[in-house]
């Protein structure tokens, strides 16, 4: 919700934006070898008072009374108080975590989220994989990797603190240029997703009754033209749409009038999907054994970290995963003894033969 390239976007965001009382939340999953997970949530808030401070409806991840909860507060040098709520619960299996996601009543309840745990016995080692996945919001969007190069992608997925550190660090000029480049390209990506999604939804709503001129393939072939039109007049986009001027450009005067209702409905679906209520948070994972693979960042305490931002799962599922391994010592010993046994037998035979 940070890239507001036009008035329409701004107005929609203002309409849909969630409460500013969202606590700053970090979820940490301590994964155990048997598949159980100790989940800890830390919420920080400087707003609100009493129980209203951490309302269930404001919290980004599922939390209920079955958790062990501790409240505390910190006062900084300026005298500002930060209220902290720490919650902890042991989930016997991933199934229990997924159940809580399904029954979530928090601020991100509309998202489809799952956790997964895979354990693979590979004789010498046992490998573990844990992931949290958020399903994509758009059906007709484009993957972000089509718009950004590797360096830009890394910046795009980076935690905010890392971004700001780099932008204010020794290579600040380079990183500010990178930030601007990413912003420009992601604005274009958002516009293209918006148009693509609108075309998809509009075609669904007009399925069977629309003329060939406004068929899905036809509109899709003119997608770039639409995007250019939107980006060119982004400051007046809201009024251009309300007055039907944009629709006339898209569909022609006759179709614009005929399919006005479907077009408005499609836009409503698009805006609801793109700018759905979402509160950012962070996910951390602590794996058993030695880490062998991940797509996350590692923080100074050697814990994996992923920021969760609504852009990350707009057009593709956002999967935060980590893999680790634990050596099976007993298997190493058994294998070693077996090798010595076979080798001794072979040597003995060779000696006796001589």
């Amino acid at each position: 919700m940070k890239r507001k390239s036009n008035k329409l976007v701004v107005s929609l965001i203002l309409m849909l934006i969630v409460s500013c009382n969202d606590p700053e939340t970090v979820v940490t999953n301590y994964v155990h070898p048997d598949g159980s997970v100790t989940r800890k949530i830390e919420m920080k808030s400087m707003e609100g008072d009493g129980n209203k401070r951490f309302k269930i409806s404001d919290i980004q991840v599922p939390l209920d009374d079955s958790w062990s909860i501790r409240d505390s507060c910190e006062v900084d040098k300026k005298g500002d108080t930060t209220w902290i709520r720490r919650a902890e619960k042991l989930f016997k299996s991933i199934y229990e975590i997924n159940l809580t996601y399904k029954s979530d009543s928090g601020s991100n309840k509309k998202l489809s989220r799952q956790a997964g745990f895979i354990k693979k016995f590979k004789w010498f080692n046992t490998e573990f994989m844990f992931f949290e996945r958020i399903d994509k919001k758009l059906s007709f969007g484009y993957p972000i990797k089509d718009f950004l190069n590797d360096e830009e992608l890394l910046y795009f997925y980076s935690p905010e603190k890392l971004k700001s550190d780099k932008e204010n660090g020794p290579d600040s000029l380079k990183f500010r240029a990178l930030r601007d480049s990413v912003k420009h390209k992601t604005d274009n990506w958002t516009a293209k997703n918006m148009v693509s999604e609108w075309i998809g939804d509009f075609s669904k709503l007009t399925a069977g009754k629309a003329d060939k001129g406004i068929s899905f393939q036809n509109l899709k072939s003119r997608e770039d033209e639409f995007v250019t039109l939107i980006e060119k007049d982004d400051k007046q986009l809201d009024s251009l749409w309300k007055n039907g001027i944009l629709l006339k450009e898209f569909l022609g005067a006759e179709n614009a009038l005929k399919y006005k209702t479907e077009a408005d409905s499609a836009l409503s679906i698009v805006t609801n999907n793109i700018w759905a209520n979402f509160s950012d948070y962070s996910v951390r994972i602590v794996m058993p054994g030695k880490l062998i693979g991940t797509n996350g960042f590692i923080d100074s305490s050697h814990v994996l970290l992923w920021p969760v931002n609504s852009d990350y799962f707009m057009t593709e599922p956002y999967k935060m995963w980590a893999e680790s391994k634990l050596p099976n010592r007993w298997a190493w010993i058994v294998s070693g003894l077996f090798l010595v046994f076979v080798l001794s037998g072979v040597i003995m035979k060779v000696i006796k033969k001589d």
Partner: protein
Amino acid sequence: MTPENEKYNKVLDLLRKSKPELDSTEDIEREVIKMITKVSHSGLNLSGVIDFLFRWVYIGWVRRSLIATSIALVLVFAYQQTIILKRINFLSRQTIIIDRENGPAPADEVEKMLMVYRNSGRRFPSKNITISERQMKELLESVNELQLKYKDLENLIEGDPEFKKIIERKLIENKRTKINL
């Protein structure tokens, strides 16, 4: 010579003259050798155990199977370790270590450190810790600030006898002692 003695001598002569006829001398020989071997190896027979354990060496298909299994084990081990090392190397190159943003770990770590500190007779464990210049500056600032506040508090207490009495009473009530920093 009495007739009884005569009879006895006759039987004895007869027995001396009639030698036993052996049916199978080889069998007897084998049995005798077996008995002798048994007697001489009445304890644990190591070579017997080894012969028993490694009897498979003389069975062609078992020997080949076990050798093949051993080779497979070595190959699997080498392959797994190579893959894991490659992945760890890749991970160390691609992952970015960042300063902690926020999270439950700090509180936990502080709690753990405090516990260690208390249990170790209020001495920090003898290991090197690395802190950044910024953290050092923050620490020094905090200590200075704490000392200033402590002084202010002392002045406040000294300046107000009533307040001093209340504080002393409370301290006694709570069995608190002043911590020497």
